[in-house]
């Protein structure tokens, strides 16, 4: 009995894929990662986008947007780090990441990007807490230092922020996981779009209508970029696009598109006039961004578990090369 598989799926990019596998078992292994990782992808994007908004708000005197964005970045990056450490097999050895700097390892690059970004975003966020400190602290040396540090720290965080938001795409794509690797041309644009939409969404939620203009524009632009890049990505992935449309990842991706489109339209049409509409749009955009991350993550995991996504494209490539 030769273990031949003939699979039919609801959504198909290519006609019936005949392929051979070893008892239907996976060829590549799915990442041993839990929900920590897609949560990190979302929170890291939110933090990066927020730091950019915060720096702009600082420069243009939009206090409520600056406060919201800096605090968003602080919370986002703190939870991100917690998720990353929690996902390690040996959390106590986290610092071993700092032994080396390896450009061939996106995780190593990301660690150093976060090492540059995290403390700055953290400091800028903590500076926003100054008004809540007891009077003695607030007006003392600590408080004055915080007050002075907020702006330069926020600016430095904003410099590192674009890398924080984009490197995670390479983190996923630099694997043998079919639906992550095949997405490598467009995924960085999907992820920065998603980060901009999430950070803009948070700005819409937290800033006053008067201050929220840039958040709204960033949110709408990010949402459009994400939707367009995602569409293009699915066109370019071949068979590996299939998991993005089926099952759990498919549901996440559909929810992501609906929420992102709804959020963008609401923000664009009503976001400048109604605080309620702005908040609703902001929440939808953040939820849409989270769904994108979970959808892409789960699609990759699915593509690793089913040998079809590894064997069929490789067999086609090989046959084409052998001329048969």
């Amino acid at each position, binding site marked *: *009995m*030769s*273990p031949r598989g003939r699979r039919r799926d609801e959504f198909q990019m290519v006609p019936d894929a005949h*392929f*051979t*596998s*070893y*008892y239907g*078992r*996976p*060829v*590549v*292994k799915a*990442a*041993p990662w839990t929900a920590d990782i897609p949560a990190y992808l979302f929170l890291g994007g939110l933090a*990066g986008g927020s730091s950019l*908004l915060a720096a*702009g708000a600082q420069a243009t005197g939009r206090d409520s947007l600056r406060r919201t964005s800096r605090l968003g970045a602080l919370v986002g990056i703190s939870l991100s780090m917690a998720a990353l450490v929690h996902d390690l*097999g*040996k959390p106590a*050895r986290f610092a*071993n*990441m700092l032994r080396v700097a*390896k450009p*061939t*390892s*996106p*995780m*190593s690059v990301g*660690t150093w990007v976060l090492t540059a970004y995290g403390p700055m975003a953290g400091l800028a966020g903590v500076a926003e807490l100054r008004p809540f400190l007891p009077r003695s602290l607030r007006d003392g040396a600590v408080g004055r230092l915080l007050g002075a540090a907020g702006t330069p720290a926020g600016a430095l965080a904003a410099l590192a*922020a*674009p890398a924080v*938001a*984009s*490197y995670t*795409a390479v983190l996923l*794509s*630099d*694997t*043998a996981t079919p639906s992550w*690797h095949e997405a*490598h*041309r*467009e995924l*960085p*644009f999907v992820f*920065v779009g998603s*980060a*901009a939409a999430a950070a*803009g969404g948070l700005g819409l939620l937290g800033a006053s209508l008067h201050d929220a*203009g*840039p958040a709204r524009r960033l949110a709408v*632009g990010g949402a459009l*970029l994400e939707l367009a890049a995602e569409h293009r990505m699915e066109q370019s992935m071949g068979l590996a696009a299939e998991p993005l449309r089926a099952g759990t990842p498919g549901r996440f991706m559909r929810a992501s598109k609906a929420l992102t489109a709804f959020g963008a339209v609401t923000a664009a049409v009503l976001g*400048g006039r109604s605080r309620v509409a702005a908040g609703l749009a902001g929440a939808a955009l953040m939820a849409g961004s989270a769904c994108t991350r979970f959808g892409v993550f789960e699609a*990759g995991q699915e593509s690793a578990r089913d040998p079809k996504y*590894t*064997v069929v494209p490789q*067999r086609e490539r*090989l046959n084409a090369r052998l001329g048969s």
Partner: protein
Amino acid sequence: MTYDPATASGWVDAPARKGFFTDTSVCIGCKACEVACKEWNAVPDDGMSFLGSSYDNTGALGASTWRHVAFIEQKKPVDLGMPSTARPGADGDGRADFRWLMESDVCKHCTHAACLDVCPTGSLFRTEFGTVVVQDEICNGCGYCVPACPFGVIDRRIGEKDTPKVGVAQKCTLCYDRIGEGLEPACAKACPTKSIQFGDLDELRERAQSRVDVLHAAGVHDAKLYGESEGDGVGGMGAFFLLLDEPEVYGLPPDPVVTTKDLPAMWKKAGLAALTLLAGAVAAFAGSGS
């Protein structure tokens, strides 16, 4: 000149690159390799269940399975002196229309190893023998090597707290401790048919080619090498195979490519995306005075 991964990794006066040639045409599926590997390397038990896949209840390579013997039962005429279900000569010409494929799989010790490339701690390293080994004490269990490997070899070990090396990435070391002492790896040593051969990679490649020639001359036209070519997507495998069917029949990827081959292109796109985000943020503030 052949590319020597040990020299490329900075070893000076590295010994000849070592590897495995696994000739599946003489494998009898005894699993002595699986047992020897577990014993020598103190690889813990990772459970056993009936998998319904011929005589394979091991399943796949993983953190606690560093050799895995695949069993495939095929309806196909064969005459290799292999065990068959028919009485010898029963069908007249000594052939039965059934064959058993058996293959002892192992880490490929790739020339361009994705697991090593993506490891963020430097735990995975290239030895002086050109092999790829995890340093257990350094690995922090990030798990990145797991999806990076194009063969699904390496995995993060799961288990109870007292399981040795739990939470860190584990795989075949090509018996780094043994070969350093001039011994052959435990699996090769235990293999009773010399299906698993250990030695200098150059020499193994020659030996493998002459074995293919012999098999072809004997009418076994299915025989082909897998992973011996430096031109393949991983730059050649340190552990390569003689197969009697397509790679995917054995659960091997037909055309594996090291994922980091595309990494420069990926960084470029990520840089472009980062700039797009930065420009978008600037534009969002420049957009209007409101």
